[in-house]
Structures are given as structure tokens and as C-alpha cells.
């Protein structure tokens, strides 16, 4: 299904992290992150009928400074260009670093600085 519908071009591993612009110490902030990735299940075929091999992010680590704040274990059931949103208690100025790893050994990283106003 949907073979005729071409998705927009993908820049594998390109990532965006969004945090509020004005953060005060102790705020529980909203963090949103998206990484460009096909999240191929291995169950689809391309328009020529060849199976598309499984290619998906299965491990996400969120470091806040030198401590891990969250860790996600995913399957190919998460949508293409996987998006995640969660909260974070911003109690220190430090880098927030995401590391996405896929089942083919791909590693993608992106960070933002948590700074107080």
C-alpha cells in the first residue's frame, strides 16, 4: 500500500531538539526531539517489489550533563522520523544530549544547552 505516495526526501540522522527559550532554575520544561529516519519495519516492499530491509532506531539515550535522564527502547512500531516529547526538571545549566542508535549500527547525536535566564 501507499507505494505511489512518495515521502519527502530524508536526511538520515538530521535531528532537532526543542526546549523553551526562557527557562528558570527548577522549571519542569517540555523537551521535544525529532530525528529523520525511515523506521523501516522490514515488512514493506519498494515500487519494484523488492523487500525493504528493516532499518529503525531501537535505542535512545538522553544525557543531561553527565547523567542519563531518560533512556528509550523502541521498535520499528514508532513512526517514520521518530518524535518524542517529555518533561525535564531543569535544575542546572548543562547540555542536553540525545543519542539515537539504529539496528544497522547508525549513531546520531544532537544537543542543546539548558541555560537559565
Amino acid at each position, binding site marked *: 500500500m501507499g507505494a505511489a505516495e512518495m515521502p519527502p526526501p530524508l536526511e538520515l540522522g538530521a535531528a532537532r531538539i526543542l526546549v523553551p527559550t526562557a527557562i528558570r532554575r527548577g522549571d519542569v520544561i517540555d523537551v521535544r526531539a525529532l530525528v529523520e529516519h525511515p523506521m523501516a519495519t522490514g*515488512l514493506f516492499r519498494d515500487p519494484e517489489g523488492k523487500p525493504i530491509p528493516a532499518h529503525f532506531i531501537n535505542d535512545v539515550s538522553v544525557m543531561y550533563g553527565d547523567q*542519563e535522564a531518560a533512556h*528509550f527502547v523502541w521498535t*520499528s512500531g*514508532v513512526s517514520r522520523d521518530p518524535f*518524542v516529547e517529555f518533561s*525535564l526538571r531543569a535544575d542546572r545549566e548543562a547540555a542536553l544530549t540525545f543519542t539515537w542508535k539504529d539496528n544497522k549500527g547508525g549513531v546520531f547525536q544532537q544537543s542543546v544547552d539548558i541555560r537559565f535566564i
Partner: protein
Amino acid sequence: MSGLSRRSFLHASGLAFLALAARRLAALVRPGPEDDVPWKVQQVLKQLFGDRQIQAGHVQLDVPTVAADGRVVPVMIESDLPMSADHYVKAVHLLVDNNPDIHLAEFRLTPQIGQAFVSTRIKMRMTSPVRAIVETSDGALWSAAADVRVTVNGCG
């Protein structure tokens, strides 16, 4: 038959009827996928949590009742359980009964997260119950479930 026993009989039958009606009503209000867990899902739950009891409550699961596109179904899971240093939600599990991978995702959290809340977008192969199970640092398991009707297969 004395009037008293007749009255008490009426009383008792009235109460029984009320109890029955209440149960009917509860079933109407909560056609809960919680109550009816398919065997394949029970196996996954057993693998994840052993014989630990999963209780309904403390979890709010936000999913659309109808998903037009099974490739992108928004899911939001929230819990009112605390996120303090010694009592916190250590994991949020997302399960979809009728997907190839039933245990779709696991979000491991720490007190640093501040509030037990996770939102993402998932694929759904077909109409299915979606389950959110929250695991606390002291090992308690809380859950919520909702049915999502899917019109376009998102898995292949």
C-alpha cells in the same frame, strides 16, 4: 407470610436488582480493553513483569478513537504518580495488541524527568487496543487502555 418478611424480601430483591443494574451500567461506561487481555498480550506481559499484578488507574492514555492513517498515530501517556528522588515512575511501557511487535516502546525515566509524561507517534497495523503500563520505582504497575480504530494499515 408476615408483612415484615415480605417487606424484607422486597428489600432484598430490590437491592439485588440495583446491584445488577449497577454492574450493567459499569460495563457500559467502561467497555474496558483492560478486562479482556488476549493470550498473546498476556504472554508479553508475563515476560515483562512476571506474575506482578497490574492495576488500572494513575495512568492517562490519550489516543484518537479513529486513526485515519495507521502510519502516524499520536499517543500521549501521563501519570499523576510522583517523580521524587525516592518515589518515581521508572518506566512507561506502550503495547499495541494487534501489531507485529506488541511491546512497541519502553521509556525509562529518572526523577530528573520531573513529571511522568511521554508523547510520541506510532504505527498501527489494524484496529487494536493500545495499552500504557507505568512501572514505579517500588515495583507497582499501573495501566490504562483504549481502543483505536485504524482505517489505513501502517505496518505492512
